[in-house]
């Protein structure tokens, strides 16, 4: 069986991962196509990493079907891993080696020649903007540098499929944008990306298609824009009140203004096609919020709609 023909690199059907009695992944169906950036969006504990580790062929599935690059991870683990790039959630660099040594030693595990890894390490340090630290030990590098090195390391074998588990968690905004840019370039080169994240903006920016995971299951699937269209309205009106006055507004019938309202501890979210006009109507009804904000719907709203909870608490 080869799936390159129909362009599906990862196919999961009823994929289950249990740790003892505990179900981390509760039967998910996923198909990742060649060349796309595919996302797993979900809060901590949703089962994203467990899924990624099964796809990375380091964690055997408990039940279900899984095919990666047209092969079975249970049987062809090493052959699949030879063609994957993996960025684990937590950096596992060899911090007592230099930046360059990390890349070269790792590259050798993929059967690359010494000359190849030498050239590749130089190229990747350039890519990750670490050339100036090439011969420094990894230990004292900043978190952002370590993360960039982990990502550079994952590219040492020119992977066809790159698995990134929360690639930007812990990075400052500037470093995140830098990384998004790099990932975008990889995608342009034809690398298929699978990204997990609990940042909705990251998912919106990077992913062509994504699944929303919650409590070990997939609760929605589609392109970010399609998901927003399907599960949310065009705009959201956010109203903040003085402590205690939020309930007054609710008693006053603010919920009747729109089809759907979310009551958060610190604010009300009113889902509407036109935020400004909803705000005017609210004012006319004598509702006096401390502040108001009209914004576009995001994946955060989709998640809230589907689960009744915020993505990041």
């Amino acid at each position, binding site marked *: 069986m080869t799936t*390159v023909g*129909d*362009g*599906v690199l990862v196919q999961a059907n009823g994929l289950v991962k249990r*740790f003892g009695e505990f179900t981390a992944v509760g039967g998910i169906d996923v*198909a990742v*196509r*060649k*060349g796309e950036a595919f996302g797993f969006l979900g809060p901590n504990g949703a089962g994203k990493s467990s899924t990624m580790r099964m796809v*990375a062929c*380091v*964690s*055997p599935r408990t039940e279900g079907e899984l095919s990666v690059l047209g092969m079975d991870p249970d049987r062809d*683990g*090493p*052959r699949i*891993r*030879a*063609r*994957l790039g*993996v960025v*684990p959630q*937590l950096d*596992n*660099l*060899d*911090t*007592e*080696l*230099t930046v360059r*040594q990390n890349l*070269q*030693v*790792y590259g*050798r*595990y*993929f*059967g*690359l020649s010494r000359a*190849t890894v030498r050239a590749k390490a130089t190229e990747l340090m350039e890519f990750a903007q670490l050339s100036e630290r090439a011969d420094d*030990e990894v230990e004292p590098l900043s978190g952002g540098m370590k993360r960039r090195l982990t990502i550079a*390391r994952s590219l040492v*074998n*020119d*992977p*066809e499929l790159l698995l990134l588990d929360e690639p930007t968690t812990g990075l400052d905004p500037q470093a995140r944008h830098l990384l998004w840019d790099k990932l975008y370039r990889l995608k342009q*080169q*034809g*690398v298929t990306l699978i990204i997990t994240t609990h940042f909705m903006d990251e998912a919106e920016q990077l992913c062509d298609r994504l699944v929303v995971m919650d409590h070990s299951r997939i609760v929605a699937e589609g392109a970010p824009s399609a998901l927003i269209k399907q599960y949310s309205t065009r705009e959201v009106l956010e109203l903040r009140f003085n402590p205690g006055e939020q309930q007054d507004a609710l008693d006053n019938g603010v919920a009747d203004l729109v089809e759907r309202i979310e009551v958060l501890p610190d604010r009300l979210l009113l889902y509407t096609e036109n935020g400004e006009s909803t705000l005017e109507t609210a004012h006319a009804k004598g509702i006096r919020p401390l502040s108001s904000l009209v914004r576009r719907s995001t994946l955060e709203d989709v998640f809230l709609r589907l689960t009744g909870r915020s993505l990041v608490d």
Partner: protein
Amino acid sequence: MPQVSAPTTQATGRVVRSPHAAWLRVEGHWQWYRRHWHSTLFSSIAQPILFLVAMGMGFGSQVEPSEATRNLPYLVYLAPAMLVVGALQNAVGESSYPVLSGFKWQKDYWAVTATPITPGQLLAGQQIWIALVIGFNGCAFVLIATLLGAVQSPGILLSLLAMVLTGMACSAPVVALAATVTNDGNAFNGIFRFVVMPMTLFSGTFFPVSQLPEWAQPVVWLSPLWHGTELSRAAAFGGAEFGPVFGHVAYLVGLFALGIWLARWRFRRRLVV
């Protein structure tokens, strides 16, 4: 489902065969050693030499050659045994915290098994590396001991084999333990205090085990250090008989095999979850 054109990228990675894969791990350890060898020098080479000097030359100056020392100067009698003590200490040192760190602190074992390298190959590379370190330190010991006048015959080169075998027999079970513990490695302190220490004192290194009370003799038979020491002295001083030599080798090989078997099981258990 959309049709996608032929792959624009083709990964360069490939699977390497088992012995080569393990050897790549050895290369990785070597890269570490190149930068950090000096940090291990005291415990690995200086310590056994200090023991040899203190006991062999200091204490030994008070010991007359006798039947108990095979009619050799105490320093010469001690050298092949101290060589094996060094192997024991090196083996336990290299197999405990460094291995636990691969799982727990550096977590680099997880990085390695995300490549085509399997947990078994990772373990094999670790064991080969430990054997090389033990062998290298043993050579350094023999060289220094020779300069100190503690070596009288080339047979000590054969003792190096006994030394590495003993080291591996002690290493593999400790590697298995290191792959099992999840705390900060308190178990290793226990190993050092309650296994390595008494073993070093009562395995015939400094005095023949025949001096021990009768009931203690069978306990000594359990000590890999005693078997290694017997082999090492037989190699250095000659006069070995086939039966005992075979028994010692069999015991050490058996312990090594058991350790490897346990370690393989623990490595898989821990890395493939």
